């Protein structure tokens, strides 16, 4: 059986950059946000790589990446992402900031997905990240699914196995480092990926050149999607506090490292 795998994902600022919350004309933002280098949101990245693996295993399958972000920044990010795995881009030109209203974003994404020619819900697997490296609302993907009428939804997915009978065996993260096993009889389904199990593919310019032939036109015709913060009012925005206590120790054993971490957690 072939699948139509649609991955929703956008860009986030490079986490190595200095991320300083400021209040802009449209609400909260990051200082110099448009100047900072961006990456594909890592959770969306996991979803994309899993989608490509699945498509590679099932002849006739195809992967789309539906992405809402500033067109120019999307183009920059595609210079890397396009080299990872084969996919077709559906671009929406709008804000990718972490403070947009999840329902507005989801509405724009759902509309773009429904406009994909030849969309067949019986073959559709809707992928995305269950989280985001920006301020993840944790709701966007679910709302997209609802708008598409897909009620079989799974979050925190680490594994998807397509069984011989066409059913989907899915492992979702639950408490205590365990997985909940679900079986879904058939597509369509929404899968919000945790980390999956695949490494980030190396850049391959050959793949990139093939992808870019479609990506550049997609960016050219990216539809303006002016998503905003909606009715949400942010009273304050701060970065998560962090403390870095760095020790450089070479050749420590795993047991010693584990003991050090336990001691640190206990405040020792």
């Amino acid at each position, binding site marked *: 059986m072939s699948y139509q795998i649609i991955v929703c994902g956008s860009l986030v600022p490079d986490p190595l950059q*200095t991320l300083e919350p400021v209040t802009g004309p449209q609400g909260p933002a990051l200082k110099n946000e*448009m*100047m900072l*280098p961006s990456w594909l949101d890592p959770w969306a990245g996991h979803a994309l790589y899993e989608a490509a693996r699945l498509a590679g295993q099932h002849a006739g399958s195809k992967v789309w990446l539906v992405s809402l972000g500033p067109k120019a920044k999307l183009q*920059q990010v595609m210079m890397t992402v*396009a080299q990872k795995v084969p996919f077709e881009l559906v671009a929406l030109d709008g804000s990718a900031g972490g403070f947009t209203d999840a329902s507005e974003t989801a509405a724009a994404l759902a509309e773009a997905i429904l406009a994909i020619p030849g969309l067949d819900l019986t073959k559709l697997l809707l992928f995305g990240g269950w989280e985001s490296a920006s301020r993840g609302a944790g709701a966007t993907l679910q709302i997209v699914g609802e708008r598409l009428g897909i009620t079989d939804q799974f979050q925190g997915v680490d594994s998807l196995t397509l069984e011989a009978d066409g059913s989907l065996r899915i492992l979702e993260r639950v408490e205590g480092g365990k997985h909940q096993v679900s079986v879904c009889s058939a597509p369509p389904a929404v899968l919000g990926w945790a980390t999956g199990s695949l490494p980030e593919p190396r*850049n391959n310019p050959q793949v990139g*050149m093939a992808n870019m032939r479609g990506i550049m036109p997609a960016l050219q015709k990216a539809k303006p999607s002016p998503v905003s913060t909606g009715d949400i009012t942010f009273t304050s925005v701060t970065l998560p506090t962090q403390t870095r206590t760095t020790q450089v120790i070479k050749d420590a054993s795993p047991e010693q490292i584990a003991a050090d971490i336990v001691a640190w957690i206990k405040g020792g």
Partner: protein
Amino acid sequence: MAATDTLPSLQTLPSDQLRALQWRFADRYDLAMIVQSVRPIARGPVARLVAQGGRNTHEWTAEKNALLAIYDESGITAAFLNPEFGGFIEGPKNLALALVAFELSWVDAGAATCSLASNLGVAPIHERGTAEQVAHYMPLVSPPGPGDSREATRVAFALTEPIPFVGVETGLLSGKMRIVEWEDGKEPMLHIDKRGRFITNMDFANVVTAAVDSADPRIKGSCIVILEKTDPGSWDAGVPTRKMVHQLSSTCDPVFNLKVPASRIVGGYTVKDGVIIPNFSHGEIIEAVFRRTRVTVGLMTSSKLLSAIEPIIRYQRSRFRGGETGTPGSPRYDLGLQTKQDVLHRLIDVWATGEAGAALGFETARLFDRLDPLDREKDRLFAEQGISGRGVLKAFARIQQDAIDCVTLQRQPEAGRDQARLDLLESNPLVQYAILDAQANVFCPACKLWNTGYGATVMREAVSLMGGYGITEDCPGFLPHKWMDAQLEATYEGPEAVQRRQLSVTMTSGLFLAQFEGWITDLEALQAPGSGACITASAMRLWLWSLRHLQNATDVHGAKLYQSNRQGVTFPLTDALCWLMASRQQILDTVELGRSGAADPSVADELPGTLAFFMDLCQVQAARAAGETARICSELVLGYLAKPAVACACCADAAPGVDATALQAFSGHRARLDACLYGFRLAKDRAANALTSVMIPEALDYPV
């Protein structure tokens, strides 16, 4: 320091898109992708290996060897190849390879050399190989893909030889070829006896392109010959060279004693009166090869300088943190050493030099991209007309005047010029080739000489800005390695003296000087206040006047000043020209950034501040270039005259044998140049001030 509150200021370090606009490849997604493909390799496995001490051995270790497969997988190896041979970039690839070298050298130039040496090895075949040689070897160089079980073909280029000839004269070869078999109607078999020195890639190469000379009356002259590891005879990769630089590249002293068919002579041969005459001498081939690969070497050093900016800023700001004085929020805590103007000014010098070098290097790479198709067309046309050897030189001597006419006509007002003749000249590929070739003959050695030579000096300054940290292995950004590596870059593929020697000839070409005069006019007409264009233009006028004066002047003893063996005159003039070329290109790139950036919404937030900062850097560099030019020109114009009774230039007309009119003209150029320097030091203050507020990442994106 100067107040800059009302002016746009540098907010962040330049983005990739801004660089693409500035270096003029924003419309080339293939190049943007190769940058993104190479960067994680440089800042990932390459950086990790350096951080783990991978450079601390001359041997070619398994860890170093593992990088080759990574280069293959990421497209670095195939970047040189045309798509029909497994590559992915259409057309000329000088800019692409320049970007690859730039990205790798940001972390380690040995890695860049390792990847580029394969290109150097195969370049003789690419540039001058027969159709059969190209069809056979180029696909082999393409890395094996999934399911392809063949062994990767890796190539080395063997030119330099052991002492006494090493580094002395590339025209002299002790590597020899003789005919060992030549049966009627069959391919002659050659015996190759070649010892190499400082040969890159030998630890893993299985194909070598080697320069050899004839030791047989039945072979005329020299050539480049292709050797394969499986050829009958002895293939000894040799011992590793005990170099202290570029340790992520393999360098050995190999010995070859092999029997190969004459069809391995690169470019083929003809037989005349029972004598094999190679179609290309080794000199002709290495000229075609090196003039391209030297550009990437120049860019390696510029990349190091620009890579040093972020770690130095971070070091400066954090210098006093953790001490008893300086609490969070205090200038001492937040800015650290950046409260001191000197370290800021010196860092601006580093940054400005890196920008100028990168501008010069990338323009040279783009120039070769423009030149390459014309080069092929020139070869085709000459072959069609049966012109070869010295005939080519004669043909170009005839074309020279047409080319000068073309350049001259292009600068005349459209209303009064002979448009029909200009159209004719502009449509003549040989004329257009001659124009660009005259530029390339100056740009290439200028880039190699200035970027690496002066770059190495400034790299020392960068290291010094790290204090004692700068000479430890723990120094972020691997700056001490980069300092040492820069010295190699100034030496290999033609040391500084070779570049100066070439420049001293090519910069006096009438066709080049006709273009140079036009560049001065263009700079003077450039509507870019604050860019330093008037400074550089005035310095260029001073240089041009001095060159022409010195070409005809004699010293106090009546000896001609500008002559081949008088390197005390010719070489400093080449140095001055390099400063000017780099400054001019930096200004042009910055102006281009302002123009194209204004139309690109993705840099809308970043552009005003970065552009203002880059303009200030241009002024700083222009003033420095002008100072060097003025010093050199004064030394040369005045320094060979008799000392006047009153020792100042304005009174020199009192001295015997001095051309007072000439000196007045010279003084006029000096005075004009001095007048252009008003305010440039304020630009340096502004730029220095910007360093105190520019936002940098939390951490370096590669390990230490």
